[in-house]
Structure formats: C-alpha cells, structure tokens
C-alpha cells in the first residue's frame, strides 16, 4: 500500500524534475548549513580553545592596553617592564611570573628573507620546563631549547611543513635572524597551537639582543598557586598594578585576563557565529517549506482531474491525503539527503583545507550518525508539515467536480 503510494509520489516528482529541484533548494541550503555547522562546531571550538592551551587553566595573562591589531602585547604604547614583573610575582597567589615576548623578525636562509614571529624562552629550567609541559611541546627533530643554548633557536613545525625557503630546514643548520647567525637546535612537533607552529623560539637574552630590547616585555604570564583562585588573584594583580601606577578603578591601562575569560571570549564569538548560521538555516528552511507548499498547491490544481479519477476508481479521502503527503514528504526527504551530503562536503573541505593550511588536525570533522538521521527525518517531516494544507485540500475534492476539471 504505502510502497505503491511512494512510487506514485516519486513518479510525480520525476515528471516535474525542474520544479522539484527548484523546490528543494531551500531545504538543501538549510540542512547543509545545520549539518556543516554541527559537524564542524565542536572541531572549531577545540581548535580555538586549543590556542589557549599554552595558558592552561592555572595562568593569568597581563598585558598593557593595546592600540591596534597585531601580536598580543606588541601594540601597547607603554610596555610592561621588569618592575611590573617583580610586582606581579610578589602578589599573593602568584607562583611564577614569566615575561613573554612576541615579535616579528627578519629571518634569512638560503638567501631568502622572510618575516617570522619570534618568541622568547626563559633560561630558568623550572620556567621553561613548565612552558614545554603546558604547551605539550615535543621535539620532532633535535632537542628542545634549554639552559645555556645561547646562539641557538628552536623552530615550530610550520618551518619544515612549508617550502618557504625552498630548502629544508633541519637541526644543525644555520639561519640569520636580524642579521645574527643562529643554529637550529630542534624542530617541534606540530601542535594545536598554531602561533607556536609558526614561531622561532630563542632564549630571553638572545631575543633582547637581536631585537634590541632593553627592559620591556609584551606580556606577563602569571602561573597561579591554585587554579581555583584565578578570579581573586586577577583582582589582586589589578589592585597592585593600579596602586603602583596611581590609577583609579576603571582607569586601567592594562588588562588581566583569566583563562576562563579568554575561553569565554572565544565561546561568545562561536555562539554569535552559530546564531547567524542557525538563523540562515531557519530562514532557508522556512522558505524551503513555503516552496514545498507552493509546489503542492500547484500540483493539486494541475492534477484535479487525476484526483477525481483516483476517487472514481475507489481512492478514499485518506488515500489521496496519503499520496499527496508522501509526495511533499519526499520533496523534503530528497532535499534533506542532498542537504546532508552538501553539508558533509562543506565541513569536510573546510576541515581538510584548514588542516592543510595550519598543519596538524587543527579542525576536526565530526558528524555523528544521529545528526544525519535527525536532519533527514526533520526535512521529511518539514515536507509533510508544509504539504499538509494542500494535501488536505486535494483529499477533500468532490469526485464529480474534480472530474469536470480540465
């Protein structure tokens, strides 16, 4: 019975191929948006929050107010200095205060000069080991930078993955940074932190020399004694800096960010993106649904005589209703299946190209099976819902009148 009705419905859709395809476009877009959003969403979140992994949950970052866009801390007018570092390390609840430099430097190798991000590694083993641990840094080649490695650098994984210098960089080779010669001591494994993947790392002292920095730092990372006290310690640091600089509350020319805040900022951005995409999906699905309703109305008018004939040969109102509902449901279903395929295609290509561009499994692609089942059954139900009124109209046609139609 139902199989027959499905066949009748499918035949009718095939008969009006172009109209059926056009009707399904709205459904394609809506379902594709939802599927790609969900299957990329968790990957995107992991990728972005992964950038904060080096800060881990027991750290605070202190920066001076910035004037524009650039690497964190680099555009601040008043740089943080040793005095601030000492002040922060003396705050109760702060275990360790680490100065952090993030600069852009000229790197020369194989007679090619490129600008690269350069960052510092403190010389104190306690500090750098903690950094390596929290970053999950492992040497892919050579070894990690350590105490006494003056004149040596460590490179992120991007340097070997890309062919920027037209010649492979390996441990032991020499490169010039801002004109000074350095030896590559190690190359890191690819990590989820793409800032690290693209950075040159050298000891504090080397960086200061090369970049001609005296007493300034872009950022101070404060390691906490107790991760649960992040908010309180952040307040204490703010108070200490305010008192030191003679500022009132609300006039701060610096910021203290807890990891929670950082992750919250990311989440807020992700949520806004989600809202926009979901909005587009809803609008598109409603428009798609109206398209189905419109097509079904036209179909009922065009096929009035056919409906009359079906009734004459014994179709009950409920049979006609089923035939038309199945037809509109099929419009939704086929639209949904194609939408899922497009959505999977989009998220796979985004994930694939992001991984190619940034290296490693930066944005994972994860489409749970229930999502596919849900998307397909949702679109089928949507088709049925929007086809309901035209189908009821078809089923209620009086056979004698319907047969008189042209």
């Amino acid at each position: 019975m139902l199989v027959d009705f499905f066949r009748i419905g499918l035949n009718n859709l095939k008969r009006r191929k172009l109209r059926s395809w056009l009707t399904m476009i709205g459904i394609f877009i809506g379902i594709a948006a939802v599927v790609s959003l969900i299957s990329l969403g968790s990957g995107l979140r992991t990728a972005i929050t992964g950038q904060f992994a080096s800060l881990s949950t027991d750290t605070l970052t202190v920066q001076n107010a910035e004037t524009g866009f650039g690497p964190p801390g680099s555009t601040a007018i008043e740089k943080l200095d040793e005095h601030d570092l000492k002040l922060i390390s003396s705050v109760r609840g702060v275990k360790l205060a680490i100065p952090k430099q993030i600069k852009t430097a000229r790197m020369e190798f194989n007679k090619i000069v490129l600008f690269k991000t350069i960052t510092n590694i403190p010389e104190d083993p306690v500090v750098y080991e903690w950094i390596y641990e929290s970053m999950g840094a492992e040497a892919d080649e050579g070894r990690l930078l350590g105490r006494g490695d003056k004149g040596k650098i460590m490179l992120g994984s991007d340097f070997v993955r890309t062919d920027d210098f037209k010649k492979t960089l390996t441990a032991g080779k020499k490169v010039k940074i801002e004109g000074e010669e350095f030896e590559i001591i190690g190359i890191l494994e690819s990590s989820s932190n793409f800032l690290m993947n693209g950075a040159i790392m050298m000891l504090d002292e080397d960086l200061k020399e090369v970049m001609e920095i005296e007493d300034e730092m872009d950022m101070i990372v404060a390691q906490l004694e107790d991760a649960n006290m992040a908010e309180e310690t952040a307040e204490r640091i703010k108070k200490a800096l305010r008192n030191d600089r003679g500022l009132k509350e609300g006039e701060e020319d610096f910021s203290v960010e807890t990891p929670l805040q950082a992750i919250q900022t990311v989440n807020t951005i992700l949520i806004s993106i989600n809202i926009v995409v979901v909005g587009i999906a809803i609008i598109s699905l409603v428009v798609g649904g109206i398209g189905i309703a419109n097509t079904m109305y036209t179909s009922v008018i065009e096929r009035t005589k056919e409906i009359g004939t079906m009734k004459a040969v014994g179709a009950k109102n409920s049979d006609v209703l089923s035939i038309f509902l199945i037809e509109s449901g099929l419009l939704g279903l086929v639209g949904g299946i194609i939408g899922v395929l497009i959505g999977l295609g989009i998220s796979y290509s985004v994930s694939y190209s992001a991984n190619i561009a940034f290296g490693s499994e930066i944005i994972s692609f994860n489409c749970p099976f229930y999502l596919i089942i849900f998307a397909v059954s949702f679109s089928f139900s949507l088709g049925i819902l929007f086809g309901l009124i035209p189908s009821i109209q078809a089923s209620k046609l009086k056979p004698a009148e319907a047969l008189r139609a042209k």
Partner: protein
Amino acid sequence: MRKRNKRGGEIIRLREVFKFYQLGESIVKALDGVDLAIKQGDFIAIVGPSGSGKSTMMNMVGALDIATKGDIFLDRINIEHLHESQLAQIRGRKVGFIFQTFNLVPTLTALENVMLPMVFQRVPLRERQMRARELLVEIGLGNRLNHLPSELSGGERQRVAICRALANDPDVILADEPTGNLDSKRGEEVVEMLNRLSEEGKTIIMVTHDLDMAKHADKIYKLKDGKIVN
C-alpha cells in the same frame, strides 16, 4: 440479443431523484425526479443533448455525487446514506468507470494504471500484477504493459481504461461518452467490447450523444431537462 450468466435481478434503482445546482442567483435542476430500474446484465444507453442531465445521472449512479433529494440503490444498498469512505469502497468494488478522455494517470504505465483500482482495494501486489496483465493481454495490449499513456494511441488508451474499469471485477460499468475521442472504427470496437461484457453479465450504462453507438444497447433512455422522456 442472448445473454449468458445472467442473474437478471435489479442492480440499480433510482427513486424520485432530484439534483439541483446553485448557479449564481438561479437554481439549475440537473435531474428532475428521475425514476429508473436497471437489471443485472442490461446494456443501457442514455442519450440526450448537452445539459440534459446525462452526466449528472451517471455521477449519481456511480456514487460520485449525492442527490439533493431521492434514493439511489446500488445492489440494494441505498448509497444516499453512506459515508465518504463507504462511497469510495462502493465505487472501487461495484463500479468501473470509462471516460471520454480516458483519464489515465500519466505517470503510471499501462500495467500500473490497471493495477490502481486494486491498490485502493488493498489487493496484494502479486495478485494485482497477475490480474492486470491478464486483462491487458486479453484485450490485445500484451506488448504495451510498460508503456506510459503518452506512448499509446487513443484506441489503446481507451482499452487500457476498459481494463482498469474491469480490474476489481465490478457489476456495473459506467461509460461516459467512451467513443467521443475515437474515430468511428475504434469507437465501434469499444462498443463491441461493452456489448461482450454485457453478454458476460456486466451491467453497462453508456452515456452518449452518438445515436449510432446507442443502437448497440438493449435499451435507450432519452433525457431532456433532467427528465427521462421515453
């Protein structure tokens, strides 16, 4: 004409049947107190000018429409008191329709069109296919089973429609101008077929304005202004 397998009992009875239509301000009397009794196996032709009420009467007998007043008995069941789904059942089981414009479902093949009435009677697929194939082969369309109506000639389409009308083995065949869209040779063939069916015991009611065709019937009723005039 000698009839075989005839039971001869009354199969259709119209008692004081009126049908009025509201047409703008005025009321049109499509049927104006029709009384008629038809026996099983009769071949009846209903003739009359257009607007005389022929089609309205067909619709009443075929349970496609209900009367404004009066009773219609189909196989002793008063169809005026039936619910929509019961009317659909009656149409599907007891009546077979043949239309002037064939009214085949354009997206279904000849075989599927013949199977359609059986779908609505919940006949199992295998049985449906067998019966439809049998009917089409018998009528000479064995090589046209999987053709769409658009791939068939007018005569072939009407033969498919006849097979469809016979699918559920109904007692009554209602043919509304069955030869109207056919040339005279094909028209004759169709009427010949109806004649044969009547000999086999089917009750045939044919509405036509073609008196040559009507002559094949056992009885001819003339309708004028919603009344039987002979």
